[in-house]
């Protein structure tokens, strides 16, 4: 989707992850800024930004709020998803707690649906090893369709590799990610909603079409409101037939 960046342009990378995965620490490590580190969900609601230079490239880093999902229900989740959609950062670094991969991957899937150009940072790698959890990194990377870097935020291990991965990912042409197959029933719903959205495609701005359809099925308040303001009455009725009346 985004084109290859010239060597002189700066790269924008957004950091995202569940709360308490060490995201703020990684942000501090990357940018060298000394910011508050805490376990409170509110800490990173404000947009924090910094930058680093690596391999001669300047990378602007934005710290997004720590969230478990990207619904319209909580303000900080909205902040995060709006940033990814509207600002279109060149790279989105999904920071994942390697010791609770299963729970963390949910957000990773949501990010994939947002067409984010992902780099997965598998943090707490020291604890993953200490707990004898055996992660097949190549396989995981292949399954997620994103490069994976292992990091230990507390010691700074893996930061240089993460920086390189960010730069490398920003230079690659963003390829269409293998979308998660939701099964015939849902896919049929996504397809018919997508075709309705497509009738007014321009008005939906930068939001990925498939994502919009999924969000409408999930009855996301924001996307529903947006659809109501853009689509005609009959079009909304057709969507309502798929997602059901409220």
């Amino acid at each position, binding site marked *: 989707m985004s084109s290859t960046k010239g060597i002189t342009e700066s790269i924008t990378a957004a950091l995202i992850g569940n709360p*308490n995965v060490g995201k703020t620490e990684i942000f501090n490590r990357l940018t060298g800024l000394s910011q*508050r580190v805490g376990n409170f969900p509110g800490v990173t609601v404000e947009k924090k930004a910094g930058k680093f230079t690596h391999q001669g490239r300047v990378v602007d880093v934005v710290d997004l709020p720590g969230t*478990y999902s990207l619904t319209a229900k909580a303000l900080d989740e909205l902040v995060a998803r709006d940033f990814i959609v509207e600002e279109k950062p060149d790279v989105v670094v999904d920071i994942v707690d390697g010791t609770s991969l299963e729970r963390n991957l949910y957000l990773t*899937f949501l990010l994939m649906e947002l067409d984010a150009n992902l780099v997965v940072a598998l943090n707490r790698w020291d604890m993953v090893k200490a707990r004898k959890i055996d992660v097949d990194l190549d396989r995981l990377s292949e399954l997620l369709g994103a490069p994976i870097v292992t990091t230990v935020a507390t010691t700074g291990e893996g930061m240089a590799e993460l920086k390189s991965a960010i730069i490398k990912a920003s230079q690659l042409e963003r390829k269409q990610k293998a979308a998660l197959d939701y099964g015939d029933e849902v896919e049929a719903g996504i397809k018919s909603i997508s075709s309705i959205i497509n009738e007014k495609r321009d008005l939906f701005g930068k939001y990925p079409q498939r994502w919009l359809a999924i969000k409408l*099925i999930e009855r996301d308040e924001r996307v529903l409101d947006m659809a109501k303001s853009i689509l005609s009455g009959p079009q909304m009725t057709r969507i309502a037939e798929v997602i059901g009346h409220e």
Partner: protein
Amino acid sequence: MSEFAEDLSVILAQKRYERISEIMGLAVKKEGESVRTYTDMLDRVFLNRYLGIPIFLTFLWVMFQFSFTVSEPFVVLIEKTFEILGSFVEQSIADPYLVSFVSTGIIGGLGSVLVFVPPIFALFLALSILEDSGYMARAAFVMDRFMYRLGLHGRSFIPLMIGFGCNVPAIMAARSMDSEKDRMITILVSPLMSCSARLPVYVLIAGAVFGSAHAGTAIFFIYALGIVLVILVAQLLRKTLFKGEQSPFVLELPTYAMPKAGSALLHMWMRGKMFLKKAGTIIFGAAILVWFLSVHPWEATAGGQLIAESYIAWMGHALEPLFKPFGWDWMTAVALLFGIVAKEVVVGTYGVLLGVDEGTLGESLVANGMFTPLTGFAFMAFVLVYVPCFAVLATIVRETNSFRWPAFVLVFQVALAFLVSGVIIVLGRLMGMS
């Protein structure tokens, strides 16, 4: 039709989880799952159904005791410095107006606030250590069970804990709450959490009327009072303005970590810096205003000698009837008035009005018969509740996008302050205190 639709959104989530476990199965193998970690062991104690809350309260109490013990030598150092500075100014400046401005306005007003830098920094240090160690999330967890029964949302406890430092970030942290009702309740009760700006007032009054041995305990009770009020008011709000179910509480408990000195000190500095900044701007400005009003009209006050003839005394006497039943005089009335700007100004105002060194400010409050232990404690409670400071009101305006809610908070808290202090005075007198 709607049944079918229900299924669709459920299927979406289901498929995601299915795919995740599929990936987990393909790429991850766990061997040492049954390893019992320190975290598990500590949590068995800290999250214990019966011990959890007592342990939390103990930590809180230790935190305050620590803050005052550690900071004492630094307080003495600052007091001495300002004492020397004050006498130096009086000797070296001839013009009486300038002497009054510098020694009473600047040194008196600002100095009386600056002596509270050490205890505030020490408290921030203690808070940072609790946070970095991973205990703070447990505190929220432990309190959730308790708060759930009281109709409060567990997630609101985290912003409220931030409120111990400053109510402004506490109110902003409420953004992370899922339900709008829970968020509004949290915003509206947050100002009742005893922020660090109120600490100088407590330290002054508690130190004066209870002595250094019991000051920490008295202050602990004020903080506890704040928590109790938060819970009561939240319950009231949920039953009246924000009726409805609370959303479920999900909180991740991080693994315990040994707090690192460097990062704890850094946090202390980041938070403490805000206090210093405030002392240099708002509090300084208010102190100058108080000084100006206390020495003018210049002739009538005989060059600032007769504060009783000043504008400020006039204002104080006008307000005094309101506070007379509580046993507080006109100086307290004025101090409370200016405290609306920022609570530390209460202390600065006393500094200017009494025209004494910070070190002896507490003593002269008692010597002037302004506070007994009972009226002093009631005053501390009043300062806890009576108004959010300007910055907090501005934040509520921004976060609720209205002027109605900050106005509500203002009126409500003033009324509540009179009620709470009134109850303390009445109960105390019934028990035979004066």
